């Protein structure tokens, strides 16, 4: 089981804040994203735009990383703190 979190504008676009999903051992982030795009069609276009960062356990990671049980995967739209 992994926890998926959406922030800011993504909550509105995707229609939810969090979801919990099963992952098979050996799944890469890339494979996981493919699966998730199937379940959440609006996510596909967004990810293709390239503006969304993805973090695993609060670190921004590359797509070939393996996803493990208990991970927290978050979708982060462009930051706008500081003013």
């Amino acid at each position: 089981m992994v926890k998926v979190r959406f922030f800011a504008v993504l909550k509105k676009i995707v229609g939810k804040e969090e979801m919990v999903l099963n992952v098979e051992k050996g799944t890469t982030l890339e494979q996981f994203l493919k699966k998730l795009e199937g379940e959440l069609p609006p996510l596909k276009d967004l990810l293709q735009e390239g503006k969304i960062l993805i973090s695993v356990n609060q670190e921004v990671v590359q797509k070939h990383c393996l996803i493990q049980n208990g991970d927290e995967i978050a979708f982060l739209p462009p930051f706008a703190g500081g003013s």
Partner: protein
Amino acid sequence: MQSQKSQLSERIRIQVEDFSVEEETLKIRNSSKRIGGIVTFLGTARDFSKGRDIHKIDFEFYPGMAEKRLAEIREQALKDYDIIEVSIIHRVGEIPIGENIVLIVVGAEHRKDAFKACSWCIDELKRITPIWKKETTPQGEVWVEEHP
């Protein structure tokens, strides 16, 4: 270790309530008698942005990750610049127009590095910290994408 940790949570904060510029500046000033110059950046909620009137600003953040990023920024600044202490405080939730949003305080022996480090910290905060801003205008709500 405990005291290092509580000192860090004093220097790096994300909070709903307002902060006192005086208190935060004096905390840094009093952290070392070697400090001769303190540079601060205070970001405040403007009523106008890119041609839109703004009625309300809301900040959302990724709890845990945001604090971690601010702590990394502080450590990097302490390493890269000839400065003595840094604190970074960011408010979240709804912030009325005209109020304080973010405060960065840098104490150094000499002013040049304090200016450079403070300016670097706010640039870096905007670049890497998972905080998002929603502006409410007469036309509705907008999640802000560009960094002004």
